Protein backbone atom coordinates (compact mmCIF):
# COMPACT_ATOMS: atom_id res chain seq x y z
CA UNK A 1 0.00 0.00 0.00
CA UNK A 2 0.92 3.63 -0.33
CA UNK A 3 1.22 6.44 2.19
CA UNK A 4 -1.92 8.36 2.98
CA UNK A 5 -2.69 11.50 1.07
CA UNK A 6 -4.21 14.83 2.05
CA UNK A 7 -5.66 17.98 0.65
CA UNK A 8 -8.25 19.08 -1.89
CA UNK A 9 -8.10 17.81 -5.42
CA UNK A 10 -7.41 19.48 -8.69
CA UNK A 11 -9.53 18.41 -11.64
CA UNK A 12 -8.30 18.80 -15.21
CA UNK A 13 -10.60 17.81 -18.06
CA UNK A 14 -9.41 18.17 -21.64
CA UNK A 15 -11.74 17.47 -24.56
CA UNK A 16 -10.08 17.09 -27.95
CA UNK A 17 -13.45 16.70 -29.66
CA UNK A 18 -17.09 17.04 -28.58
CA UNK A 19 -17.77 13.35 -29.09
CA UNK A 20 -15.82 10.13 -29.34
CA UNK A 21 -16.93 9.64 -32.94
CA UNK A 22 -15.17 12.80 -34.10
CA UNK A 23 -11.78 11.76 -32.79
CA UNK A 24 -11.95 7.98 -32.57
CA UNK A 25 -12.49 7.33 -36.27
CA UNK A 26 -10.81 10.10 -38.13
CA UNK A 27 -7.19 10.25 -37.15
CA UNK A 28 -4.28 7.85 -36.93
CA UNK A 29 -5.82 5.63 -34.35
CA UNK A 30 -9.27 4.06 -34.27
CA UNK A 31 -9.42 4.66 -30.53
CA UNK A 32 -8.28 8.27 -30.29
CA UNK A 33 -6.60 9.01 -26.96
CA UNK A 34 -6.92 5.38 -25.94
CA UNK A 35 -4.22 4.59 -28.48
CA UNK A 36 -1.70 6.16 -26.12
CA UNK A 37 -0.01 3.22 -24.38
CA UNK A 38 0.05 2.84 -20.62
CA UNK A 39 3.81 3.37 -20.48
CA UNK A 40 3.31 6.78 -22.07
CA UNK A 41 0.58 7.67 -19.58
CA UNK A 42 2.99 6.69 -16.82
CA UNK A 43 5.51 9.15 -18.22
CA UNK A 44 2.88 11.88 -18.24
CA UNK A 45 1.93 11.02 -14.69
CA UNK A 46 5.57 11.18 -13.57
CA UNK A 47 5.33 14.92 -14.23
CA UNK A 48 2.23 15.02 -12.03
CA UNK A 49 3.91 12.99 -9.26
CA UNK A 50 1.40 10.17 -9.45
CA UNK A 51 1.88 6.45 -10.00
CA UNK A 52 -0.58 4.02 -11.49
CA UNK A 53 -1.97 1.63 -8.89
CA UNK A 54 -4.38 -0.15 -11.20
CA UNK A 55 -6.32 0.21 -14.42
CA UNK A 56 -9.69 -1.06 -15.54
CA UNK A 57 -10.57 -1.06 -19.20
CA UNK A 58 -14.07 -1.23 -20.62
CA UNK A 59 -15.41 -0.80 -24.12
CA UNK A 60 -15.72 2.94 -23.58
CA UNK A 61 -12.79 4.01 -21.40
CA UNK A 62 -9.62 3.27 -19.46
CA UNK A 63 -9.85 4.16 -15.76
CA UNK A 64 -6.70 4.42 -13.67
CA UNK A 65 -6.52 4.55 -9.88
CA UNK A 66 -3.46 6.58 -8.96
CA UNK A 67 -1.26 7.06 -5.92
CA UNK A 68 -1.51 10.12 -3.60
Amino acid sequence: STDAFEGPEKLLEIWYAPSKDLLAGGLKSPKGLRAIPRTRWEEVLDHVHCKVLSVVQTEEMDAYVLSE
Partner: protein
Amino acid sequence: SSLFVFPHKVILKTCGTTTTLAGIAPLQDAVAQYVGYPRDKQPWRVFYSRKSFMFPERQVHPHTSWADEVAFLDAHYDNGTAYIIGNVNADHWYLYATRPQYFDPELRLPVNGVDLRSNVKLNDQTLEILMTDLSPVHASQFFTERLPTVSDGTDSMASSVSSLGAEADDSDPGHVLGNVVTKSTGIDQIYPTEQQIVDSFCFSPCGYSCNGLVKEGYYFTIHVTPERHCSYASFETNVPPSHYGMNDLDVLDKVVEIFRPGKFSVTLFDSEDNSLLTKKMPIHLASYKRTEKISYELDGYNLVFLSFEANR
Protein backbone atom coordinates in the same frame (compact mmCIF):
# COMPACT_ATOMS: atom_id res chain seq x y z
CA SER B 1 -6.21 10.27 -7.56
CA SER B 2 -7.73 9.10 -10.82
CA LEU B 3 -7.23 9.26 -14.57
CA PHE B 4 -9.99 8.52 -17.09
CA VAL B 5 -9.13 8.17 -20.75
CA PHE B 6 -11.85 8.22 -23.39
CA PRO B 7 -11.25 8.32 -27.15
CA HIS B 8 -11.92 12.06 -27.22
CA LYS B 9 -11.24 13.36 -23.71
CA VAL B 10 -9.08 12.84 -20.67
CA ILE B 11 -9.99 13.52 -17.06
CA LEU B 12 -7.25 13.81 -14.45
CA LYS B 13 -8.16 14.29 -10.81
CA THR B 14 -5.31 14.47 -8.35
CA CYS B 15 -4.84 15.56 -4.78
CA GLY B 16 -2.20 16.36 -2.18
CA THR B 17 1.02 17.82 -3.51
CA THR B 18 0.58 16.55 -7.04
CA THR B 19 1.37 18.86 -9.93
CA THR B 20 -1.63 18.30 -12.16
CA LEU B 21 -0.93 21.08 -14.62
CA ALA B 22 2.64 19.90 -15.17
CA GLY B 23 1.08 17.03 -17.08
CA ILE B 24 -0.28 19.27 -19.83
CA ALA B 25 2.87 19.58 -21.94
CA PRO B 26 3.79 15.86 -21.89
CA LEU B 27 0.16 15.05 -22.61
CA GLN B 28 0.22 17.33 -25.65
CA ASP B 29 3.34 15.50 -26.86
CA ALA B 30 1.68 12.10 -26.41
CA VAL B 31 -1.51 13.19 -28.15
CA ALA B 32 0.49 14.56 -31.08
CA GLN B 33 2.53 11.37 -31.39
CA TYR B 34 -0.19 8.75 -30.99
CA VAL B 35 -3.34 10.53 -32.12
CA GLY B 36 -1.97 12.92 -34.72
CA TYR B 37 -3.51 15.96 -33.05
CA PRO B 38 -1.03 18.77 -33.73
CA ARG B 39 0.68 20.08 -30.65
CA ASP B 40 -0.01 23.69 -31.56
CA LYS B 41 -3.77 23.16 -32.05
CA GLN B 42 -6.04 24.05 -29.18
CA PRO B 43 -8.15 21.28 -27.64
CA TRP B 44 -11.89 21.61 -28.14
CA ARG B 45 -12.51 22.46 -24.50
CA VAL B 46 -10.55 22.54 -21.25
CA PHE B 47 -11.92 22.63 -17.74
CA TYR B 48 -9.76 23.01 -14.65
CA SER B 49 -11.35 23.28 -11.24
CA ARG B 50 -10.40 22.98 -7.64
CA LYS B 51 -11.65 23.62 -4.14
CA SER B 52 -10.21 26.50 -2.16
CA PHE B 53 -6.65 25.88 -1.01
CA MET B 54 -6.12 24.03 2.27
CA PHE B 55 -2.33 24.05 2.51
CA PRO B 56 -0.99 26.26 -0.29
CA GLU B 57 2.40 26.48 1.40
CA ARG B 58 2.87 22.75 0.88
CA GLN B 59 2.19 22.88 -2.84
CA VAL B 60 4.59 23.13 -5.75
CA HIS B 61 4.42 25.83 -8.43
CA PRO B 62 2.08 26.56 -10.15
CA HIS B 63 -0.25 25.13 -7.51
CA THR B 64 0.65 27.63 -4.80
CA SER B 65 -2.07 30.10 -5.77
CA TRP B 66 -5.03 30.48 -8.11
CA ALA B 67 -3.32 33.38 -9.86
CA ASP B 68 -0.32 31.20 -10.69
CA GLU B 69 -2.54 28.36 -11.88
CA VAL B 70 -4.47 30.70 -14.17
CA ALA B 71 -1.26 32.19 -15.55
CA PHE B 72 0.02 28.70 -16.27
CA LEU B 73 -3.21 27.72 -18.05
CA ASP B 74 -3.28 30.97 -20.03
CA ALA B 75 0.20 30.15 -21.27
CA HIS B 76 -1.16 26.95 -22.82
CA TYR B 77 -4.65 27.94 -23.92
CA ASP B 78 -5.86 30.89 -25.98
CA ASN B 79 -9.40 31.34 -24.86
CA GLY B 80 -9.76 30.60 -21.16
CA THR B 81 -11.83 32.35 -18.53
CA ALA B 82 -11.19 32.08 -14.80
CA TYR B 83 -13.93 32.14 -12.16
CA ILE B 84 -14.00 32.23 -8.37
CA ILE B 85 -17.34 30.92 -7.23
CA GLY B 86 -18.65 31.21 -3.69
CA ASN B 87 -17.63 33.06 -0.57
CA VAL B 88 -14.00 34.07 -0.98
CA ASN B 89 -13.67 34.43 2.79
CA ALA B 90 -14.71 30.84 3.33
CA ASP B 91 -15.93 27.99 1.20
CA HIS B 92 -15.33 28.68 -2.46
CA TRP B 93 -14.44 26.96 -5.68
CA TYR B 94 -12.28 27.85 -8.64
CA LEU B 95 -12.96 27.17 -12.29
CA TYR B 96 -11.01 27.78 -15.48
CA ALA B 97 -12.84 26.99 -18.71
CA THR B 98 -12.06 27.55 -22.37
CA ARG B 99 -14.60 28.28 -25.05
CA PRO B 100 -15.18 25.66 -27.75
CA GLN B 101 -13.09 25.86 -30.88
CA TYR B 102 -14.20 25.28 -34.43
CA PHE B 103 -13.73 22.08 -36.36
CA ASP B 104 -12.92 21.16 -39.92
CA PRO B 105 -15.18 18.18 -40.77
CA GLU B 106 -12.54 16.58 -42.98
CA LEU B 107 -9.58 16.86 -40.68
CA ARG B 108 -11.67 16.81 -37.53
CA LEU B 109 -9.27 19.32 -36.11
CA PRO B 110 -10.12 22.75 -34.80
CA VAL B 111 -9.73 25.46 -37.42
CA ASN B 112 -11.67 28.61 -38.03
CA GLY B 113 -14.67 28.44 -40.27
CA VAL B 114 -16.82 25.40 -39.56
CA ASP B 115 -18.77 25.00 -36.37
CA LEU B 116 -19.78 21.45 -35.67
CA ARG B 117 -21.27 22.25 -32.33
CA SER B 118 -24.75 22.42 -33.74
CA ASN B 119 -24.37 18.83 -34.97
CA VAL B 120 -23.24 17.51 -31.62
CA LYS B 121 -25.62 16.74 -28.82
CA LEU B 122 -23.42 16.88 -25.78
CA ASN B 123 -25.80 15.48 -23.21
CA ASP B 124 -23.04 15.89 -20.65
CA GLN B 125 -23.49 16.23 -16.93
CA THR B 126 -20.93 16.25 -14.15
CA LEU B 127 -21.86 16.33 -10.49
CA GLU B 128 -19.15 16.95 -7.92
CA ILE B 129 -19.55 16.90 -4.14
CA LEU B 130 -16.62 18.13 -2.06
CA MET B 131 -16.88 17.39 1.64
CA THR B 132 -14.82 18.56 4.64
CA ASP B 133 -14.93 18.06 8.40
CA LEU B 134 -16.13 14.47 8.10
CA SER B 135 -17.90 12.91 11.06
CA PRO B 136 -15.17 11.05 13.03
CA VAL B 137 -17.34 7.95 13.17
CA HIS B 138 -17.87 7.92 9.43
CA ALA B 139 -14.25 8.86 8.70
CA SER B 140 -13.07 5.91 10.79
CA GLN B 141 -14.40 3.57 8.08
CA PHE B 142 -11.40 4.56 5.99
CA PHE B 143 -8.62 3.59 8.43
CA THR B 144 -7.02 0.23 7.67
CA GLU B 145 -6.49 -0.66 11.33
CA ARG B 146 -10.24 -1.19 11.57
CA LEU B 147 -10.29 -3.60 8.65
CA PRO B 148 -9.80 -7.38 8.64
CA THR B 149 -6.34 -8.80 7.89
CA VAL B 150 -5.91 -9.63 4.22
CA SER B 151 -3.96 -12.74 3.26
CA ASP B 152 -4.24 -12.79 -0.52
CA GLY B 153 -5.28 -10.72 -3.48
CA THR B 154 -8.55 -12.44 -4.28
CA ASP B 155 -11.86 -10.79 -3.75
CA SER B 156 -15.12 -10.13 -5.46
CA MET B 157 -13.77 -7.53 -7.87
CA ALA B 158 -13.21 -10.28 -10.42
CA SER B 159 -16.90 -11.11 -10.56
CA SER B 160 -17.93 -7.48 -10.97
CA VAL B 161 -15.32 -7.02 -13.66
CA SER B 162 -16.79 -9.85 -15.68
CA SER B 163 -20.22 -8.23 -15.62
CA LEU B 164 -18.94 -5.48 -17.93
CA GLY B 165 -16.41 -7.59 -19.75
CA ALA B 166 -13.59 -5.41 -18.47
CA GLU B 167 -9.99 -6.20 -17.72
CA ALA B 168 -8.52 -5.19 -14.38
CA ASP B 169 -5.15 -5.01 -12.70
CA ASP B 170 -5.75 -5.65 -9.01
CA SER B 171 -2.76 -7.50 -7.54
CA ASP B 172 -2.08 -5.11 -4.64
CA PRO B 173 -3.62 -6.01 -1.25
CA GLY B 174 -4.76 -2.39 -1.08
CA HIS B 175 -7.40 -3.39 -3.59
CA VAL B 176 -8.71 -6.15 -1.37
CA LEU B 177 -9.08 -3.78 1.56
CA GLY B 178 -10.55 -1.24 -0.81
CA ASN B 179 -13.22 -3.71 -1.85
CA VAL B 180 -14.05 -4.38 1.79
CA VAL B 181 -14.51 -0.66 2.39
CA THR B 182 -16.50 -0.22 -0.81
CA LYS B 183 -19.05 -2.72 0.44
CA SER B 184 -19.06 -1.86 4.13
CA THR B 185 -19.65 1.83 3.48
CA GLY B 186 -22.33 1.30 0.84
CA ILE B 187 -20.32 2.96 -1.91
CA ASP B 188 -21.24 0.04 -4.15
CA GLN B 189 -24.90 0.88 -3.56
CA ILE B 190 -24.85 4.53 -4.61
CA TYR B 191 -26.05 3.38 -7.99
CA PRO B 192 -28.29 0.34 -7.62
CA THR B 193 -26.89 -1.83 -10.39
CA GLU B 194 -24.96 -5.06 -10.68
CA GLN B 195 -23.59 -3.80 -13.98
CA GLN B 196 -20.72 -1.86 -12.47
CA ILE B 197 -17.06 -2.16 -11.65
CA VAL B 198 -15.73 -0.46 -8.54
CA ASP B 199 -11.93 -0.48 -8.66
CA SER B 200 -11.03 0.63 -5.17
CA PHE B 201 -7.86 1.02 -3.16
CA CYS B 202 -7.29 1.48 0.58
CA PHE B 203 -4.12 3.26 1.54
CA SER B 204 -2.19 2.46 4.71
CA PRO B 205 -2.70 3.64 7.38
CA CYS B 206 -5.71 5.46 5.96
CA GLY B 207 -7.24 6.92 2.85
CA TYR B 208 -9.31 5.52 0.04
CA SER B 209 -9.77 5.96 -3.69
CA CYS B 210 -12.11 4.30 -6.12
CA ASN B 211 -13.19 4.50 -9.73
CA GLY B 212 -16.67 3.22 -10.40
CA LEU B 213 -17.56 2.33 -13.97
CA VAL B 214 -21.08 1.68 -15.15
CA LYS B 215 -22.52 0.93 -18.55
CA GLU B 216 -22.15 3.19 -21.59
CA GLY B 217 -18.99 4.94 -20.48
CA TYR B 218 -20.28 6.58 -17.32
CA TYR B 219 -18.16 6.75 -14.19
CA PHE B 220 -18.01 7.90 -10.61
CA THR B 221 -14.91 8.46 -8.53
CA ILE B 222 -14.38 8.92 -4.79
CA HIS B 223 -11.31 10.01 -2.85
CA VAL B 224 -11.11 10.17 0.92
CA THR B 225 -8.60 11.66 3.33
CA PRO B 226 -10.03 10.77 6.75
CA GLU B 227 -7.50 12.29 9.17
CA ARG B 228 -9.33 14.52 11.59
CA HIS B 229 -7.18 17.65 11.11
CA CYS B 230 -7.78 17.70 7.35
CA SER B 231 -10.65 15.31 6.72
CA TYR B 232 -11.90 15.51 3.18
CA ALA B 233 -13.85 13.43 0.71
CA SER B 234 -14.82 14.02 -2.87
CA PHE B 235 -17.37 12.41 -5.15
CA GLU B 236 -17.61 13.08 -8.85
CA THR B 237 -19.83 11.45 -11.45
CA ASN B 238 -21.22 11.80 -14.93
CA VAL B 239 -23.76 9.02 -14.43
CA PRO B 240 -27.28 10.17 -15.37
CA PRO B 241 -29.20 9.29 -12.20
CA SER B 242 -32.38 8.80 -14.22
CA HIS B 243 -30.82 5.65 -15.67
CA TYR B 244 -31.32 4.10 -12.23
CA GLY B 245 -34.66 5.63 -11.32
CA MET B 246 -33.01 8.35 -9.26
CA ASN B 247 -32.42 12.09 -9.38
CA ASP B 248 -29.46 14.24 -8.36
CA LEU B 249 -30.86 14.80 -4.88
CA ASP B 250 -31.08 11.04 -4.30
CA VAL B 251 -27.42 10.71 -5.22
CA LEU B 252 -26.51 13.65 -3.02
CA ASP B 253 -28.34 12.14 -0.05
CA LYS B 254 -26.62 8.80 -0.46
CA VAL B 255 -23.14 10.27 -0.73
CA VAL B 256 -23.56 12.68 2.18
CA GLU B 257 -24.87 9.86 4.35
CA ILE B 258 -21.67 7.84 3.76
CA PHE B 259 -19.40 10.64 4.99
CA ARG B 260 -21.57 12.93 7.14
CA PRO B 261 -19.41 16.02 6.49
CA GLY B 262 -19.63 19.18 8.55
CA LYS B 263 -19.59 21.17 5.32
CA PHE B 264 -19.90 20.33 1.68
CA SER B 265 -20.24 22.01 -1.66
CA VAL B 266 -22.03 20.76 -4.74
CA THR B 267 -21.24 21.72 -8.30
CA LEU B 268 -23.28 20.56 -11.22
CA PHE B 269 -22.32 21.10 -14.85
CA ASP B 270 -25.24 20.24 -17.04
CA SER B 271 -25.54 20.66 -20.80
CA GLU B 272 -29.28 20.25 -20.48
CA ASP B 273 -31.62 22.03 -18.12
CA ASN B 274 -33.41 19.08 -16.59
CA SER B 275 -31.59 18.47 -13.33
CA LEU B 276 -33.63 18.55 -10.17
CA LEU B 277 -30.72 20.30 -8.49
CA THR B 278 -30.92 23.07 -11.06
CA LYS B 279 -34.65 23.41 -10.75
CA LYS B 280 -35.13 23.12 -7.02
CA MET B 281 -31.82 24.19 -5.48
CA PRO B 282 -32.88 22.84 -2.09
CA ILE B 283 -32.64 25.15 0.91
CA HIS B 284 -32.45 22.26 3.36
CA LEU B 285 -31.26 18.71 3.20
CA ALA B 286 -31.65 16.32 6.12
CA SER B 287 -29.54 17.81 8.97
CA TYR B 288 -28.04 20.47 6.71
CA LYS B 289 -28.78 24.07 5.83
CA ARG B 290 -27.80 25.71 2.57
CA THR B 291 -25.30 28.55 2.91
CA GLU B 292 -24.72 29.45 -0.73
CA LYS B 293 -26.53 29.23 -4.03
CA ILE B 294 -24.97 30.42 -7.26
CA SER B 295 -26.08 29.79 -10.81
CA TYR B 296 -24.04 30.44 -13.97
CA GLU B 297 -24.65 30.04 -17.65
CA LEU B 298 -21.43 29.06 -19.36
CA ASP B 299 -21.03 28.32 -23.03
CA GLY B 300 -23.22 25.28 -23.54
CA TYR B 301 -23.53 24.47 -19.85
CA ASN B 302 -25.54 25.42 -16.82
CA LEU B 303 -23.46 25.53 -13.67
CA VAL B 304 -24.97 25.33 -10.21
CA PHE B 305 -22.88 25.78 -7.07
CA LEU B 306 -24.41 25.07 -3.68
CA SER B 307 -22.80 24.84 -0.26
CA PHE B 308 -24.22 23.40 2.93
CA GLU B 309 -23.38 23.25 6.64
CA ALA B 310 -24.46 20.68 9.15
CA ASN B 311 -26.99 21.67 11.81
CA ARG B 312 -24.66 20.53 14.58
